[in-house]
């Protein structure tokens, strides 16, 4: 038992060290040429545009279900008019960045790990080095930047769609007054609620990029190794998002 705990702790420390080292190596390269702008644009398109359908659909239904649930509870206290503010605050401060983060971790983090892992086991990363190309600069930095920059943009859209989902259910299904709904929403919500979600989104993006790229870059052991790296990237990214969300919230609003 103790041996197993020791082994897992050692493994955890090694992985945290690897993530920190990858992040450090990528950040150091941000401040010197060459920058692979084309790779950054390609990755931004892959992370941002390609993730839109899944992210927006998730946001829409989350807003809708949140409105429905809140209405049922508030109805017991005759406080239905509070539905709007609960939906918008929940989406903007928590559910937007967290759910988008989880979706992007599943889609993009997995793809980073699988792609880089395949490149590692088929010696393509070694080939880059022998062609005078720094693999960290060429492969990791554009992915890390793309996901860190695209996450807040995705969250902005997800926030609007999520709030609209809640509005649509409240107005068209639950017969609430649209003017009261909008007034309550705008009255209590502040700009810093919105910004806090964006800060979280950028942080989650950095986590997803770092974990996905590190797992793929250091992948070993053929096809099985790529599969393991991909699974680990998704699981660790999702766990990290949920854990860090608590600490970020405590730091920003505590």
């Amino acid at each position, binding site marked *: 038992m103790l041996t197993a705990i020791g082994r897992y702790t050692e493994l955890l420390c090694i992985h945290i060290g690897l993530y920190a080292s990858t992040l450090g190596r990528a950040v150091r390269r941000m401040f010197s040429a060459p920058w692979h702008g084309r790779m950054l644009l390609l990755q931004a398109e892959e992370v941002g545009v390609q993730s839109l359908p899944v992210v927006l659909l998730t946001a829409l239904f989350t807003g809708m279900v949140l409105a429905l649930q809140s209405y049922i509870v508030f109805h017991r206290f005759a406080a239905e008019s509070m539905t709007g503010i609960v939906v918008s605050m929940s989406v903007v401060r928590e559910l937007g960045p967290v759910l988008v983060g989880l979706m992007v971790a599943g889609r993009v983090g997995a793809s980073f790990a699988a792609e880089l892992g395949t490149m590692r086991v088929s010696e393509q990363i070694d080939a880059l080095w022998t*062609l005078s190309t720094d693999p960290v600069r060429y492969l990791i930095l554009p992915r890390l930047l793309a996901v860190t920059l695209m996450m807040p943009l995705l969250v902005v859209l997800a926030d609007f769609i999520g709030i609209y989902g809640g509005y649509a259910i409240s107005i068209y299904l639950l017969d609430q007054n649209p003017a009261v709904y909008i007034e309550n929403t705008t009255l209590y919500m502040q700009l810093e609620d919105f910004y806090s979600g964006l800060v979280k989104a950028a942080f989650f993006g950095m986590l997803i990029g770092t974990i996905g790229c590190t797992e793929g870059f250091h992948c070993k052991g053929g096809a099985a190794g790529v599969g393991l790296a991909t699974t680990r990237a998704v699981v660790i990214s999702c766990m990290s998002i949920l854990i860090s969300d608590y600490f970020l919230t405590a730091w920003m609003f505590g």
Partner: protein
Amino acid sequence: MSAPTQAEDQPRISIRGLSKRFGDKVILEDVNLDIMPGTSTTVIGMSGTGKSVLIKCVLGLLKPDKGEILVDGENWLTLSESEQLDRMHRVGMLFQGAALFDSLPVWENVAFALLRRGTSASEARTRAAEVLDWVGLPHVEDLMPAELSGGMSKRVGLARTICHKPDIVFLDEPTTGLDPIMSDVINRLIVRLHKGTGTSILSITHDMKSAAMISDNIAMLCQGHIHLQIPPNELDSNQDPMLRQFVEGRADGPVNCSDWGRNIEEALKR
């Protein structure tokens, strides 16, 4: 590209006392090998003796535990990461599985080093087409690596290796997995490259025909050491027992493998 150059009688690559282990397993132990300018040296040896590890140590892909790797007198192991990358302009490497970039078309794979150095796309494409023509693959520039056969991939890999005119070329099992005709095509290409450009070549192979054809010097790696070095015309006449066993492909000899699988019939019956 600030690497010093040396006189022709000095080794282009000098590997001195190179040792590498993975955990408790010793892969290379005090390996010494010189590759003279314009010569082709082939390292042979059984699978798992560390031939690929040797090349990866020279290229900086693996960090050896001990030793020196001098290229034109400059120790590559003491260089910083960016200096090592800079030196890679002088190097071409053909990987065993070609290691073509899946996401790029053939011409971008071949011209990758040129494009990274700032050569214009049209110029790089013209050069890629020219080199692809040398390796007998005209009109494949726009294909993707997934559309190529094994032999074609290897030849595209060779084209990528030589496209930026390196003065040192490393070949990791250039004919492995190819049919005899394609192997001969690749061997002839390597000989033409070597004779035509005076490039220094370090290759590793199990293919004795290939070793005899492309080498000026053959080194046998065994149990982590360079066991012997001979010219290719001695491959058939040298009576070293280890070499004879390897060249003749026998399971019995100094490395005794004849007992392996002796219980297979009983196991299969069970």
